[in-house]
C-alpha cells in the first residue's frame, strides 16, 4: 500500500469501491500502514488554507463600480424605445462599424495567416511573423485613433445615443482585447481591458456633464499614451531590423 493510494483515500476521490475496501482492510490489519496513514492525515490537515490577502481599497471600489455600471447599462438598454430609424445614430453606427471592419481586417486577417497557409495566396505565404505583429499594431493604432475621434465628437445631449455608441466601442474594445491576447500582447490586452470600466462609467445616463467631460479627457489621455507607446515600439522594431 503506497502513500499515493493513501492520499486518494484521504481525499475520498479517485479510488474505486474495491480499492477503498482494500485500503480499509490494510488499515485495520497492518499497524505500519495505519501509522503511515495517521502521519499523512496529520500533515495534510496541517496544510490549512494560507492567510487571506487583503484586497486593495481602490480595487474593491472598482469591483463595486463595475456592478453599478453593469446594472446601469442594463437599465439604459431596457429604457431605450423600440428601435426606430435615427439618421445620426445610423451614421455613427456605420462609421464605427467601418472602422471596426478595417481594423479587424488588418489585425486579425494577417495574424491568422499561418493557419490559412494551405489556401492562402503568395502574399500570405511571404508574410513573416514580424509582418504579422506590425499589421496587428497598425490595426490597433487605427482603432485607438478612431476611438479618440469618436469620443471627442461624441454627442453628450442624449444619454441613450451616447450609451449606444459607447456600447459599440466597448464591443470593439473587447474584440481588440481578444486579438491582443491571441497575439501574445498581454500588456496591451490589459490596457484595453482597463478602458472598459471608464467607458461604462461614461455611458451612465445619470452622469453629470462635467464628470463626462473629465472621463472623456482621461480616456483621451490614456489613448494618447497608448498610441505614443505603440509608435515608439514600432520605431524601435524597425531600427533593430
Amino acid at each position: 500500500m503506497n502513500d499515493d493510494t493513501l492520499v486518494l483515500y484521504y481525499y475520498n476521490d479517485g479510488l474505486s469501491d474495491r480499492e477503498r475496501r482494500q485500503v480499509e482492510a490494510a488499515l485495520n490489519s497492518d499497524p505500519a500502514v495505519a501509522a503511515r496513514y495517521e502521519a499523512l492525515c496529520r500533515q495534510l490537515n496541517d496544510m490549512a488554507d494560507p492567510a487571506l490577502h487583503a484586497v486593495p481599497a481602490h480595487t474593491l471600489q472598482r469591483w463595486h463600480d463595475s456592478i453599478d455600471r453593469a446594472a446601469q447599462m442594463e437599465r439604459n438598454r431596457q429604457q431605450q424605445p423600440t428601435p426606430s430609424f435615427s439618421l445620426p445614430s445610423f451614421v455613427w453606427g456605420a462609421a464605427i462599424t467601418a472602422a471596426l471592419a478595417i481594423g479587424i481586417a488588418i489585425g486579425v486577417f494577417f495574424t491568422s495567416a499561418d493557419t490559412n497557409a494551405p489556401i492562402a495566396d503568395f502574399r500570405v505565404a511571404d508574410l513573416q511573423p514580424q509582418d504579422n505583429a506590425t499589421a496587428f499594431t497598425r490595426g490597433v493604432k487605427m482603432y485607438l485613433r478612431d476611438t479618440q475621434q469618436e469620443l471627442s465628437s461624441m454627442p453628450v445631449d442624449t444619454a441613450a445615443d451616447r450609451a449606444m455608441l459607447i456600447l459599440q466601442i466597448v464591443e470593439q474594445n473587447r474584440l481588440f482585447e481578444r486579438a491582443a491576447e491571441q497575439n501574445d500582447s498581454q500588456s496591451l490586452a490589459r490596457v484595453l481591458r482597463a478602458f472598459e470600466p471608464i467607458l461604462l462609467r461614461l455611458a451612465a445616463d445619470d452622469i453629470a456633464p462635467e464628470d463626462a467631460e473629465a472621463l472623456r479627457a482621461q480616456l483621451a489621455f490614456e489613448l494618447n499614451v497608448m498610441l505614443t507607446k505603440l509608435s515608439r515600439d514600432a520605431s524601435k522594431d524597425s531600427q533593430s531590423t
Partner: protein
Amino acid sequence: MVAILQSPSAPTQADFHAAISDRSDRWFSACLKITRNRDMAEDAVQDALLSAWNKRHQFDSSARLDTWIHRIAINAALQILRKSRPNAFEPLETDIPDHNDTPEHTRANQELGKNLAAALTHLSEIERVCFVLKHLEQWRLKEIADEIDTNVGAVKQAIFRAVRKLRVRMAGLQGEAL
C-alpha cells in the same frame, strides 16, 4: 418566455455589493493562489463579477451567491493563467528540480511565516493548481481534469508530486521552527 426563464429570486445589485464586501478577499486570495500574480487575480475577480452579473438569472437560489462567484472566479483565474502561459498545465513526466533553494529564498520563506503559501512556491504550475483545487477548494479530480484540459491520471500524478514535495518542505520548516 423571458419571465419563465428568469429566476424570480435572481440576486440583486445589493446582493452583489454585499457579497463583494464580505467575501471578495476570499475570491481574490483563491485566485492569487492559482495565478500567483496580483494583477491577474484582480482581473479574474473582475471578470467573474461581470460574468456572474450577466448570468445572475441562471443562479440557483438554493445556493450561496458568494460560493457561486468564488467558483466562477477560480475558473476565470485558470482561464487567465492558461492564456498567459499556454503550456502551464502540460503534465510533466518527471519531477522538476527545485530551483528555489537559494539562501535568499529560504530566508524569504522563513519571513513568510513558514506556512503553506511559502511551500506552494516550490511547486510547478500544474502541481500547485491541482493541489490548490483539490486540497483547498475541494474540487473532484474529474472537475480539475476537465477544467485544465487534461485527464484524471495526470491530475492524480500532479497531486501526488505536490503532496510529496509539500510534506518534505513543511516537515523541514516545522523542524527549523523547533
